[in-house]
C-alpha cells in the first residue's frame, strides 16, 4: 500500500481465527490499512491478502508482552474468540483501553454460514470505520460487538439476499482500493517484531520455544 492510501495511517491487529473476523480485517487491508494478522504458531491463517502475517502464542509471557506492544501502536483490534477468552487472557476491553486510550476493540462471531459471516463482517467494518474517526480525534474508545443474528434481524425484509461480493463494497475517485497478496504464515515475523525492538537472535530463541 502507498503512503497515500486512505487508511494508510490506520493500524489494525487481527487476532481472528474464524472467517468473519478475517474477512473484516481484509476489508480494512483492501482500503489501505496496515493490518497485522496474528495467528498461533502452526495454525493456518485465512483471508490474509494484503495483511502482514506474524505468528505469536499470546498465552505465553513473551507473547503477551509483544501483543501489548502491538496494541500500543494499534487503532483497532479484531477478535472472535469464544466468550470469556479475552478475560481469561487478561486482554479484555478495560485492559486494552489501559494500554491504548484510543483503542477500538471489535468482537464478532461467525454466522451460521459463510454468507452470514460475510454479512456480519461488512457490518463490523462499517461500524468500526465510523467509530475510528472519533476514537482517534476525540479519544472515544469503543468496544464494538457484532452478532450475525442481530445484523440479519435488522436486515430482515430487505430486498436482498445478503450476497457480499469479493469486489470492493464501494468505490471512489479519491478512496483507494486494492487487494494485496496473501503472505505465508509468519512471513513478517522478523519485520514486525524487529520494529518492536526484538533482535534476530532473540526471535530465533522464541521460535525454538514455540512462542512465535
Amino acid at each position, binding site marked *: 500500500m502507498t503512503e497515500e492510501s486512505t487508511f494508510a495511517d490506520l493500524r489494525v491487529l487481527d487476532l481472528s481465527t474464524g472467517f468473519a473476523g478475517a474477512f473484516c480485517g481484509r476489508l480494512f487491508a483492501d482500503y489501505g490499512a496496515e493490518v497485522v494478522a496474528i495467528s498461533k504458531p502452526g495454525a493456518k491463517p485465512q483471508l490474509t491478502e494484503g495483511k502482514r502475517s506474524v505468528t505469536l502464542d499470546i498465552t505465553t509471557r513473551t507473547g503477551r508482552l509483544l501483543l501489548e506492544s502491538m496494541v500500543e501502536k494499534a487503532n483497532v483490534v479484531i477478535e472472535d474468540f469464544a466468550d470469556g477468552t479475552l478475560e481469561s487472557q487478561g486482554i479484555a476491553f478495560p485492559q486494552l483501553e489501559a494500554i491504548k486510550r484510543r483503542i477500538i476493540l471489535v468482537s464478532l462471531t461467525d454466522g451460521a454460514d459463510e454468507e452470514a459471516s460475510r454479512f456480519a463482517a461488512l457490518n463490523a467494518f462499517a461500524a468500526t470505520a465510523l*467509530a475510528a474517526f472519533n476514537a482517534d480525534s476525540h479519544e472515544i474508545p469503543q*468496544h464494538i460487538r457484532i452478532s450475525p443474528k442481530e445484523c440479519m*434481524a435488522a436486515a*430482515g425484509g430487505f430486498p436482498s439476499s445478503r450476497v457480499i461480493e469479493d469486489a470492493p463494497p*464501494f*468505490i471512489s475517485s479519491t478512496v483507494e482500493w486494492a487487494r494485496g497478496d496473501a503472505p505465508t504464515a509468519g512471513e513478517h515475523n522478523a519485520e514486525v517484531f524487529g520494529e518492536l525492538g526484538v533482535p534476530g537472535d532473540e526471535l530465533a530463541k522464541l521460535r525454538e520455544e514455540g512462542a512465535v
Partner: protein
Amino acid sequence: MFKQVLHAVRVLDLAPGWSAYAGRLLGDLGAEVIKIEASSGDPLRGAPDFERLNANKYGCMLDVSTGDGRDVLRRLAATADVVIAPPGSIDADSLRDGRPGLIIVSLPGDATVEQAISAAAGVGVALWDRRRTGEGSTIEVTHSDSKKRRTIPAGAPLTETVSALVGDLQIESCPWHLSECATHIRLHAPALREHNEYIFGELLGS
C-alpha cells in the same frame, strides 16, 4: 464525558425507500441526519418498515428538482458533512463548491441492505480520509451481481430463510453494540416536513 461516535456530523439524507437504511445507521451512531423528501414523500411512507428505516432522523420537505429547492439544498449542504442521494439526483459539484469537505455518497434508491451498509462504511472511510486531506470524497456504492440477487418485493415479510435463521429476534435499534455510545432510538421516523421550521429556520435566519 459521554459523546456519541458521530456527534457533530451532519448528514443530508435524500435516499428513498430501502436505501434510507444507510442514514438510519449514521443516526443511530449520533449523527444529525436530515431526511429530505419531495412533496410526494418517500415511497415507503405508510409501509411497516418506514419507521425502522427512518428513526433517528429529522424530516424536511424540499423539492430539489426546482431551482429554489436546489438553492436551499446548496445552502444546507454548506452546513453539512455528508450527503447521501441516488445517482444523478443532485449536482455534486455545485454542492461541494461551497463546502470542499463535503462527503457525497451515491446510493441507488433500490439499494440492497449490504449496499446501504457499504454506504455507511464509505462515510466512515471518507471521514478518516478527510481528516488527512481536508477534502470530501465521492463514494459510489457498486451494484452487486444482479444474477445472484434474489429480489424480495418491498414491504414483504421476513423470508422463511431469514426467519428460520433469526428466530424471534426483532431489532428496532441499531444492530451494532458500541460502548460509551447510545444506539437507542432518540427520534421516531419524522412526518413529512415535521422539522422544516427547525432546520430551515436556523439556516435561513428567520
